[in-house]
């Protein structure tokens, strides 16, 4: 798949936006402005960016506890995201949801999810809507390697396969599920081989290079849109940070993290090919970085000046009662 300059730069920008969002979330958490838990997507940006680049606003995604990246890649407003983390009325969920529940239904984001594997059947159901209504919309479910061992994964993939639903299952293998390394969670090192048992295509992709993700996702999404049914994509990545903010990471060595960070960084990788392939100059890319940093700061300022979450009203719990 040939990527044009605008797309290439946009992929870079989205990844950079995600990285910056996570960096600043981390500092805000450290300043005790964010409550609860946050899970950084740093290192995995190419997955959300590469997949969502093919999606329209009326396509759906389901996301995870590690959901900021998907949300940003699906074109969410950074200010509303920060406002949510800060417990503001102006947040996506009016301060009710926090990091683990940010949703933006206007852009088809059916929500982060605190239940590992919880979004998989929901995306399957969204794809069923497209099928029932005869539209060409697609649904993408993002989930982790850990979620691939939940029953919801199994039941959903089978349903999608037998009904040929327009859904793409994107398993983000970041090598760990909390403290459990994938090597201890699977007796195979080919998670994508599970697709065979459902009768759907399964494909692995190295998510260090966003171009590869973009290409693989493009094919799967085109197939789904054309009525060709679901695909399982397993994207290999590495989680740069702890599982959650504050994770002491007793389960992996500092050296391991350092090596992976140095060798597995989709943003460094993109900068390299953008310049070496002559898509953009270092200066142009620096310019993108600057713009992203500025919009991020502006978003934080906007979020911090929002009013705190208003009292709960019954209509939020029931549409009618």
């Amino acid at each position: 798949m040939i990527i044009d300059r605008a797309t290439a730069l946009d992929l870079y920008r989205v990844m950079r936006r995600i990285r910056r969002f996570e960096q600043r979330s981390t500092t805000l958490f450290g300043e005790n402005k964010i409550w609860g838990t946050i899970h950084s997507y740093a290192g995995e940006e190419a997955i959300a960016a590469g997949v969502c680049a093919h999606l329209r606003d009326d396509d759906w995604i389901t996301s995870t506890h590690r959901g900021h990246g998907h949300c940003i890649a699906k074109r969410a407003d950074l200010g509303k995201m920060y406002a949510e983390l800060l417990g503001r009325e102006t947040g996506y969920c009016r301060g009710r949801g926090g990091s683990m529940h940010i949703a933006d239904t206007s852009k088809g984001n059916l929500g982060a999810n605190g239940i590992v594997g919880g979004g998989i059947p929901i995306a399957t159901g969204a794809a069923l809507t497209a099928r029932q209504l005869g539209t060409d919309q697609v649904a993408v479910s993002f989930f982790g390697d850990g979620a691939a061992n939940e029953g919801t994964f199994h039941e959903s993939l089978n349903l999608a396969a037998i009904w040929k639903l327009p859904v793409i299952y994107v398993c983000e293998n970041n090598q760990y599920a909390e403290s459990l390394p994938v090597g201890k969670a699977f007796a195979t090192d080919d998670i994508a081989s599970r697709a065979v048992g459902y009768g759907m295509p399964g494909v692995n992709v190295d998510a260090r290079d966003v171009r590869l993700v973009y290409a693989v996702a493009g094919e799967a999404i085109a197939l789904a849109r054309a009525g060709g049914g679901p695909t399982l994509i397993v994207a290999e990545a590495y989680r740069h940070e702890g599982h959650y903010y504050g994770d002491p990471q007793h389960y992996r060595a500092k050296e391991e993290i350092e090596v992976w960070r140095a060798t597995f960084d989709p943003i460094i990788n993109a900068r390299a090919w953008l310049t070496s392939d002559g898509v953009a100059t270092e200066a142009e890319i620096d310019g993108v970085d600057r713009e992203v940093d500025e919009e991020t700061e502006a978003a934080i300022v906007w979020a911090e000046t929002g009013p705190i979450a208003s009292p709960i009203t019954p209509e939020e719990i029931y549409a009618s009662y």
Partner: protein
Amino acid sequence: MPATETASAGAPGATTERFYSEALRDALRLEMQRDPRILVMGEDIAEHGGAFQVTAGLLAEFGPDRIRQTPISEIGIVGAGVGAALTGLRPVVELMYIDFSGLAIDQIVNQAAQNRFMFGGQARVPLVVRTQGGSGRGNAAQHSKSLEAWFTHVAGLKVVMPATPADAKGLLTAAIRDDDPVMFIEHKLLYRTKGPVPDGEYVVPLGKADMKREGSDLTIVTWSREVLFALEAAAKLAAEGVDAEVIDLRTLVPLDRAAILSSVRKTRRLLVVHEAIKRGGYGGEIAALVAEEAFDDLDAPPRRLAGVETPIPYAAHLERGVIPQVEDIVRVAKELVG
């Protein structure tokens, strides 16, 4: 949604004697004809017509896309229902037995019931989960439980349990039209009961109890199959000079507190009857509510008559003994007024 009970098609007020299962089918059929976004999903619902024949014939009328028979994948199909509801359909998902609802409860509770709130009001989840519970058919401990209390204890869910064919039709129609997730719990021994059912469109609003018998000596609050037992008991009690009022809750959530309290304030005595085991049952909620709100109006302690705290046994004579029977209601009612 019409605010009151209406029978709007054909001859106004016309009714037909129908089985409870037929009344449910009637509601499904009329709603599916009216609204193409309604989709029915479940196990064994197509050629077989459902374990209790509720969807019999609907495959021929609506085809396999809208009467969508599924593999045995409870959380998969309920979760697909949640996703479909979030994106514009109005799915009705059938869980064959409420005993299996545990397999899907995560999607019902953590997703369907909470999505609207968690998303700050962005979502509507017009999902109906139809299921059935109760004992009496020798299906033993994994096919006979009464688990409605679990679902009442979830903010964001509604819980409906019709006792009569007419209510079955009217409440299912209301549940399908409702924009919130509804647990719609039928009873396996009601499907073959018969009663007059309004023809055409018929809506019984959620959240309204029904006084199935007026009385002055005590209030029996109950739901589902025990309503029939309570009415039989009331007839026997009447012969012995005890005049029981029978309130059929119909909807457990929202709860019609006013109906309960005004009846108890009149009769000054409360008996709650349900088939589920007593400990942790919804009868505790009703008795506690009345004790809290109408303490001084009571002439006797509130009473609960409920299932024995045991898994449901297989053998018929044992099975009968673990849920309240007509004679038990008569006995306890007499104790209460005596």
